[in-house]
């Protein structure tokens, strides 16, 4: 039992941190709640260092319902990094808010949920953890109770989320019914009944809808633009950079490990969804005027790219997809933190400003907030896949793997999409640097800057020195398809 717990030291740290923050917050006056942010960040940092230091350990726990392996470790790091960036940035965002402790507790619990999804070895644990993360983020999306947009975002997220959860559960019930087990390896072992039954396809599609909701695959994506736009920027960061990856890791586990016998079915589905999603996301992003909404559509597109890993299904492709998940975590979290910083700037210009995320606010950002603007430039160029950034490196591995496996058409579509996306990314750069503003320079809040610098460091670390990251990603991929394919 003790060994089991040791394997989950990072999660336990987080649980303790979350509870501690929640309780301490009760006794602190609003003005002093800033300390909670530091506490949460330290807790996450500790969890992160525990995870990193335990890299390479493997083990099963709690009746084999949870497993620690390269895959789960990798994704845990992704979630923790995103949580760290978000929590640091939130120190500024929650400043002066009397509900600070709830914010941090919820984000930490959401992170815990994601981490358990990453290590789940049982479909039941997976579902519960999945819901834990979902429920926490529903509340986070509606954190600004006085903000109509935030509430609308939360409501839409919640409704579609519940629908998806129901579908997921319905799908799971069939899988359980036909295989007689909820253990992921067990399902793979007893798959015959399912794969021969007509219910197989239904179950696959229902699962797909459930995870597709989190990953935001067209047509299960409709909530995402609205929610990302309406929710507080730091929460959008958590959603886009973190909880989206939870959907991906869950899908990896369910489809590639448990339902590998139904590979033909879901491969077709993913092929269609990947192409539609990346194209739709990029094309619709072109004309957006809200930067957050644009980033939301860009997230769609990125999810589409990552989904190509399911189609290609080689170690390299999966490694690429996993690496992409990490890169996207840095890039997208960073980009949303930038919108948070801009929102802060706009609100300090004018307290009653409604459209804090409108692209016009980015005019002259290069002068007004130089570090923020430079970071944003790096993030968008990384998202566009300009070399020496994480985005390029992941695209390099992922796209090249499609060529390797003969999916040239998929690569061509992805490449064309990548080209289209440059237009709206460049548009942001254009607003920041090339359009003039007569507004004053703003001093950039330290927490935002710190969060941005972490993200930038991540983007460049993967861009310049991808070797260790590729190595880990490939090891993680090997967990999914042990023998290679």
């Amino acid at each position, binding site marked *: 039992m003790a060994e089991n717990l040791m394997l989950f030291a990072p999660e336990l740290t987080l649980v303790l941190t979350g509870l501690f923050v929640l309780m301490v917050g009760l006794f602190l006056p609003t003005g002093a709640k800033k300390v909670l942010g530091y506490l949460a960040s330290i807790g996450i940092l500790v969890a992160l260092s525990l995870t990193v230091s335990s890299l390479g350990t493997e083990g099963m726990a709690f009746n084999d319902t949870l497993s620690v392996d390269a895959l789960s470790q990798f994704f845990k790091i992704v979630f923790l990094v995103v949580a760290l960036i978000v929590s640091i940035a939130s120190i500024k965002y929650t400043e002066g808010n009397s509900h600070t402790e709830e914010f941090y507790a919820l984000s930490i619990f959401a992170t815990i949920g994601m981490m358990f999804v990453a290590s789940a070895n049982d479909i039941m644990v997976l579902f519960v953890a999945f819901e834990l993360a979902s429920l926490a983020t529903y509340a986070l999306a509606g954190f600004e109770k006085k903000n109509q947009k935030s509430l609308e975002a939360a409501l839409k997220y919640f409704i579609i989320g519940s629908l998806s959860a129901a579908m997921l559960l319905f799908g799971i019930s069939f899988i359980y019914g036909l295989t007689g087990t*909820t253990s992921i390896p067990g399902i793979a072992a007893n798959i015959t009944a399912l794969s021969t039954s007509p219910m197989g396809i239904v179950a696959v599609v229902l699962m797909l809808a459930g995870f597709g909701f989190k990953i935001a695959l067209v047509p299960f994506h409709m909530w995402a633009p609205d929610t990302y736009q309406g929710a507080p920027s730091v929460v959008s960061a958590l959603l886009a950079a973190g909880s989206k990856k939870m959907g991906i890791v869950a899908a990896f586990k369910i489809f590639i490990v448990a339902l590998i016998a139904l590979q033909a079915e879901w491969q077709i589905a993913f092929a269609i969804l990947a192409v539609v999603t990346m194209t739709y996301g990029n094309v619709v992003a072109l004309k957006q005027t809200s930067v957050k909404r644009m980033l939301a559509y860009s997230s769609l597109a990125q999810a589409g790219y990552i989904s190509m890993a399911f189609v290609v299904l080689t170690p390299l492709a999966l490694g690429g997809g996993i690496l992409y998940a990490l890169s996207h975590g840095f890039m997208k979290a960073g980009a949303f933190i930038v919108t948070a910083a801009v929102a802060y700037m706009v609100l300090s210009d004018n307290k009653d400003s409604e459209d804090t995320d409108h692209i016009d606010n980015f005019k002259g950002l290069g002068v007004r907030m130089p570090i923020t603007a430079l970071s944003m430039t790096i993030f968008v160029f990384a998202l566009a896949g300009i070399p020496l950034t994480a985005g390029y490196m992941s695209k390099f591995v992922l796209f090249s793997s499609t060529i390797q496996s003969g999916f040239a058409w998929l690569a061509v579509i992805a490449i064309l999409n990548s080209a289209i996306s440059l237009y709206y990314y460049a548009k942001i750069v254009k607003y920041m640097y090339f359009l003039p503003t007569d507004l004053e320079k703003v001093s950039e809040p330290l927490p935002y800057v710190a969060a941005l610098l972490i993200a930038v460091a991540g983007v460049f670390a993967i861009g310049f020195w991808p070797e260790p990251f590729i190595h880990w990603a490939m090891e993680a991929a090997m967990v999914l398809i042990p023998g290679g394919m």
Partner: protein
Amino acid sequence: MIPIELYIGLSAIIFSIGLYGLMTQRNGIRILMSVELMLNAANINLVAFSSYNADLTGQVFALYSIALAACEAAIGFAILMAIFKMKGTINLDSINILRW
């Protein structure tokens, strides 16, 4: 013993009713109820399969899912309350400032 197909049929019907409600209802509470229906349809499945497979996992799972459904409802109501406080309505048609 009642054949498993009947359970599945029942749960499918309930699930569909839930879906139908979700698509057609405009009132936030009814939407929540529809979601509950769908979750319960799944629970029926789980329990039925559990008994059919002579395996308790399904029933445990159903319990979990009931608990989760409760949480979900709580959060849903909280969000709807907040909206109602602000706008005086929970009609979904009036909640669409975020679009395109």
